[in-house]
C-alpha cells in the first residue's frame, strides 16, 4: 500500500509521527514540507476535511491508499497497529486508557501552550496569498494573530503555567519508573515532542525535576527518536514552530 508522510521539522507533531514511524519500521515515502511557512496548505489534499479541519493545527499529513490522515497521536496509534516490533501502547485495557488520557492532556493542555510559546519565540511566516488558502477559518485567524505579533499576556502566562504543571506531573509519574507508561510508549514520544523546545523557553519548569530531565535524555536516546531528529534541516529543530492547537476557548 502506498504510504506518504508529509512532515515538518522534527519537533511537536511531526516528531511524534516520524519517531513512531521509525520505531514501528513502517515504510513510507517521506516528504519534507515547511509547516512554519504554511506549506501544508499547498498540498493536493489540503482542502479535505480531515486535513483542513485537523484540531492539531499545522501538523503532518499521512496519506495511505489515497486517504489523507492527520492528528499526530492518532497517526501514532495507527502506525503502532500496522507496524512491526514492540507495541508502543500497553497491552492491557487499563494501561491503554492511561495512555489515551495522558495523551489527551498533552493534546488539549500542553500542546496549545507549547505551540503558543514556541510561535512567540520563533514566529512562523506564511505569505498573504497562502493564508487565504487555509480552509479552517479559526486556524487562519490564529495564523493572522501570530503573524501580527498579537499574543495575550493572559495566554502567555497561562501557557507557562501549563508547561510547569506538565513537568510537575511527569516528575511525579516517573517516581519508580523509567517511562511514563512503564515501557516506552506513544505517551513518551508525544510528551517529549512538545516539551523538548520548552527547555529553553520555560527553563524554570525543569528546575528541580531530576527525573523529568533524565527522562528527556532517555527519550532523545531512543534510536527512533534520534533517527527522526537526524532529518532536521535546521540547526535546532526544537526552535522551529508553527501554529498549533487552539487554546481551550470554553470550559
Amino acid at each position, binding site marked *: 500500500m502506498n504510504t506518504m508522510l508529509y512532515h515538518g521539522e522534527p519537533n511537536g507533531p511531526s516528531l511524534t509521527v516520524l519517531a513512531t514511524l521509525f520505531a514501528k519500521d513502517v515504510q513510507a515515502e517521506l516528504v519534507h514540507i515547511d509547516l512554519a511557512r504554511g506549506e501544508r496548505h499547498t498540498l493536493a489534499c489540503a482542502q479535505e*476535511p*480531515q486535513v483542513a*479541519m*485537523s*484540531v492539531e493545527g499545522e501538523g503532518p499529513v499521512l496519506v*495511505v*491508499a489515497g*486517504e489523507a*490522515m*492527520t*492528528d499526530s497521536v*492518532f*497517526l501514532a*496509534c*495507527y502506525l503502532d*497497529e*500496522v507496524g512491526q516490533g514492540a507495541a508502543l501502547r500497553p497491552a492491557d*485495557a*487499563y494501561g*491503554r*486508557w492511561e495512555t*489515551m*488520557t495522558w495523551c*489527551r492532556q498533552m*493534546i*488539549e493542555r500542553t500542546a496549545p501552550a507549547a505551540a503558543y510559546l514556541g510561535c512567540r519565540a520563533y514566529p512562523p511566516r506564511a505569505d498573504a496569498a497562502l493564508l487565504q488558502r487555509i480552509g479552517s*477559518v*479559526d486556524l487562519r485567524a490564529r495564523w493572522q494573530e501570530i503573524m501580527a505579533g498579537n499574543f495575550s499576556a493572559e495566554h502567555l502566562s497561562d501557557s507557562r503555567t501549563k508547561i510547569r504543571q506538565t513537568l510537575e506531573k511527569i516528575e511525579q509519574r516517573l517516581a519508580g519508573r523509567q517511562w511514563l507508561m512503564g515501557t516506552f510508549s506513544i505517551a513518551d514520544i508525544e510528551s517529549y515532542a512538545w516539551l523538548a523546545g520548552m527547555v529553553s523557553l520555560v527553563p524554570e519548569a525543569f528546575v528541580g525535576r531530576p527525573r523529568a530531565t533524565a527522562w528527556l535524555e532517555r527519550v532523545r536516546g531512543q534510536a527512533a527518536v534520534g533517527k527522526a531528529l537526524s532529518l532536521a534541516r535546521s540547526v535546532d529543530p526544537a526552535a522551529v514552530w508553527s501554529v498549533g*492547537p*487552539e487554546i*481551550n*476557548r*470554553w*470550559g
Partner: protein
Amino acid sequence: MHSVTLYHWEPNANSGKPMLALMEKGVAFESHYLDLLGFDQHKPEYLAVNPQGTIPAMLHGERVLTESTAIMEYVDEAFEGPRLMPEDPRDRWRVRWWMKLMDQWLGPSFSMIGWKLFVGPAVRDKDPKELQAAIERIPLPERRVAWRKAISGAFGTAELDESRRRVALGIRMLEEELAKRPWLASNQYSLADINGFNLAYGLPVVWPELSNDELTPNILRWLRTIYARPATKACWAMGRTNMAKRAAVLEQPHGDSGQRA
C-alpha cells in the same frame, strides 16, 4: 453487586457516552446519578471519587476512570460484547479523528450555547451565597470560569457568533460525511456514532433551521437509526429531565420531524 459503577448526569454529551457504550456492550452497571445543576459533582462525596469534579467517572473494581471518550475505548476493550471499534486500523484512526473533532472543536461550541440558554438560567435563581460556595468548591479553574460566566450570562457576542459558526459548519461536515457511508467513521456502528449521537440527538429540536429532513437527510437518517437501537432507547429512558426527552422527536418517521422546536 456490579463490578462497574458509573457516576453520570443525563444521557447527554459526556455522561451519555460511557452510559451508551456500556449498554451497547451489555455491561450491567450501578448507576449514580449526579445532578449537574445541583452541583452534586463538586460535593465532597463525589470529589472523593474524582478529585477533578468532572462528570462522568467510572469505577471498575478498585480503579477510577475519567475522560468520557477514553472510558469508551476502555469499555470496548475490557468487556465482552459487540466490538464498538472497527478492526481496520485506518477505520480506527477515522473513529478517533471524528471523536476529537467533536470533543474539542464542535462540542465546546454546542456547550457554550447550551450553557448560555439552559444551564445559566436554570441555576441563576438559586441563593447567591449558595452559588458562590458551590463555585468555590470547583477544583478546576477553567470550570470555575465557565460556571461564573454561565451564571452571570457574561458571554460576548463575538464568542457566541463563533460558536454558532462552528455549529453550522459542524452540521454540514457531519452531513457530508454521513452521505459517504452508513455510519460516521466506518461501515460499522462504532464509538464515533455513540459520541456523535450524544452531541447531535437534539439537533432537530434545538437547531431545526440547520438540521432537518430537507437540509440534512443523512444526519436525520443516522440519528433515527441510532435511537431505534434497544440500548439507546434504554439509555435515554434513564434521563430525568426534559433534556433527554428531546430524543423522542427521533421516533417520528421521515417528514414528520425537524421542523418543530
